[in-house]
């Protein structure tokens, strides 16, 4: 037991001290806060910017459409500098006026210009040209201002005055979404999808990163022959267990740091968003009970043991990093093909694909926690998933320990699948 502890301690301390651990641990919170804050910031960007006020309206309608449009674009014409400049031009002079306006935009005096003419009055077409032409929000704002102005002139024709028209067309709709499960309302739907994605990413990343860490650690011990010295002191199963537990503890440490700092960043979200000049949105994380947290932890541990023991077996059977990469490709395919399903599962967490993948041991440690984040899972399904994963873990450990103890002592050529199968049958 003291020896197992010595191995766990070495794996843990040496890795936590490495600069890669420090970098990755710092990178995590930045990444997670980015995936939470950036979408919110982007959505705040979806409100039109002040760029639209600094535009020119080239009015070839000859009925004052341009002035009404300018007021609609400004929204609130009492704020100075908001009302776009209007130039009334004769249709024949339009080409020259456009050319002048283009130069103004090129010289950065103006953001862009709108052309309105008879076809605009007929509700057929209007044109905009400017530096912000790719801004969806700005264009939407201008487009809706034009529509509003057309609508207003039509209503005027049937005898409705301007103030009544405002009353009728003003619809400041705020569309919020909320999720309902059998436990009731559980906060914003977007939030839980993001949360599910974060969980999936976290599990995927740690399995890939730490699985490969174990693999190259085993390979290092083999190529430097340290393994032989260690094996002369402890049984190989102890060595394997020590590595899996030690590296697993490193992964867990990192995740705890990630989760805590991300949580803190989320709490500080309002001031950060304010700094970015974006309006704060209400954002509630899904409520995770202690029980659910423990189940997440179990999935992480089982998933980690499943993959890392197999990665260790691969590391023990090869002689170089390049051989290891090749030999690990079946494992990587298993993980990546699971990751490919993260999004479909998030979109349809109750579908057959999602249900099957959350029962298969190689995908369940990633897929099931994602589903748990977005929907409620019947306890029976949860138990079946965990049970199968536990069985998978035992099988993986059994297989891995048998390959491991023979592989570590075999040098030379990379073994074929058949040779590895024979190793499994060796007594020791």
């Amino acid at each position, binding site marked *: 037991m003291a*020896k197992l502890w010595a191995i766990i301690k*070495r794996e843990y301390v040496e890795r936590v001290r490495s600069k890669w651990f420090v970098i990755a641990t710092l990178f995590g919170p930045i990444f997670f806060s980015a995936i939470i804050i950036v979408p919110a910031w982007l959505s705040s960007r979806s409100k039109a910017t002040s760029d639209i006020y600094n535009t020119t309206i080239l009015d070839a309608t000859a009925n004052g459409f341009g002035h009404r449009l300018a007021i609609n674009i400004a929204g609130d014409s009492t704020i100075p500098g908001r009302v776009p400049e209007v130039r009334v031009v004769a249709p024949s002079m339009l080409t020259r006026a456009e050319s002048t306006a283009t130069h103004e935009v090129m010289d950065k005096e103006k953001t862009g210009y709108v052309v309105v003419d008879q076809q605009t009055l007929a509700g057929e077409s209007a044109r905009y040209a400017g530096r912000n032409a790719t801004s969806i929000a700005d264009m939407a704002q201008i487009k809706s201002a034009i529509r509003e102005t057309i609508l207003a002139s039509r209503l005027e024709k049937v005898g409705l005055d301007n103030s009544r028209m405002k009353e009728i067309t003003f619809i400041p709709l705020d569309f919020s979404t909320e999720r309902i499960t059998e436990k009731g309302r559980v906060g914003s739907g977007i939030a839980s999808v993001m949360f599910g994605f974060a969980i999936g990413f976290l599990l995927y990343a740690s399995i890939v990163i730490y699985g490969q860490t174990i693999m190259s650690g085993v390979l290092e*011990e083999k190529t*430097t022959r340290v393994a*032989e*010295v260690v094996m*002369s002191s402890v049984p190989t199963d102890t060595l394997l267990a020590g590595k899996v537990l030690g590296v697993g503890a490193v992964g867990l440490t990192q995740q705890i740091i990630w989760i805590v700092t991300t949580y803190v960043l989320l709490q500080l979200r309002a001031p950060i968003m304010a700094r970015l000049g974006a309006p704060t949105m209400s954002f509630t994380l899904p409520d995770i009970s202690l029980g659910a947290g423990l189940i997440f932890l179990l999935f992480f541990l089982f998933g980690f043991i499943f993959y890392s023991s197999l990665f260790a077996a691969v590391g023990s059977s090869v002689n170089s990093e390049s051989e290891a990469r090749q030999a690990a490709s079946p494992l990587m395919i298993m993980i990546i093909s699971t990751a490919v399903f993260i999004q479909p599962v998030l979109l349809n967490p109750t579908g057959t694909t999602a249900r099957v993948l959350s029962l298969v041991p190689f995908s369940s440690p990633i897929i099931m926690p994602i589903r748990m984040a977005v929907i409620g899972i019947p306890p029976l399904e949860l138990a079946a998933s965990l049970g199968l994963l536990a069985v998978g873990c035992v099988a993986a450990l059994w297989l891995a320990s048998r390959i491991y103890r023979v592989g570590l002592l075999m040098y030379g050529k990379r073994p074929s699948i058949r040779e590895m199968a024979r190793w499994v049958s060796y007594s*020791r």
Partner: protein
Amino acid sequence: MTEYAIDIVNVTKRYAEHAAVRDLTLRVPTGSVYGLLGPNGAGKTTTIRMILNIIAPDSGTIHIFGRPSSDPKVTERMGYLPEERGLYRKMQVKRVLKFLAELKGVKGSEAERRIDDWLERLSLKTAEKDWGLSKVDELSRGMQQKVQFIGTLLHDPDLVILDEPFSGLDPINAQALKDTVVELKKRGKTVIFSTHLMDNAERLCDSVCIIARGEKVLDGTVTGVKEEHGQRNVALALEGDGMQGIASILSDHSLVKRADDSNRFFEIELVPGGDPQTLLRRIVESGASVQRFEMIQPSLHEIFLKKVGATGIEEGMTGHG
């Protein structure tokens, strides 16, 4: 039972294609320096791994200090230096050594004290520089070898197993290793090492075992092996040109089988059971003046070549160690 540090009885280990070790019986007396000799692939490393309980024999028994080799108590009494050597490259020297000591059941503070002692002793820790604080890959190859050697001996093992210890050692470290082996023996420790360098074995070992193709060819004390397997030759040189005077003695086929003139001396092969003392007395009685009279013993190298033969070496070159 415990007069043997290692007691191997009828051990066989086979891999799919071949038997790495066949029906090997081997006893290493406690407190001796024991050489396991054989060509590459003879089964030396497999034997050593079985002694260390890294792999288990298919049949037969192995006892270390009277206990089965799988007994964890026995593990802590053995120190092992594998053939090809390396350490965790990115780890600090002291921490590597502490880790190795902990695996052998040495407590942390005690391990640290011993590590400092050893580092000073092998001049890895001097007034100017403490290499113990460096990372392994900052050390030269020779220094890494020293560190590894410390790792083998840190827990003060009663049985030290060295697999091809001299391969890749620079002359200074090789000498340090020889000195340490002698010192270990003086302290009553048992040292077993495998080698294909017969010179080293001949100088250091009390007893040897030659194995080839997984089987024991011969074993015993070095002197015993030489007596048993060597011819009994005498090198004789006389002052002046006095060979004529002893010609009758040399042609006495009840005593001398053959006499070769090797220019500077005569190499005389005695008949089986012939007593070299009788030969000496008769030469002296003949009035010849003896300048040199010396029993020539065959070297282990010669015995090895004779017993294993060139074919044995070649056949043994392939397969697992």
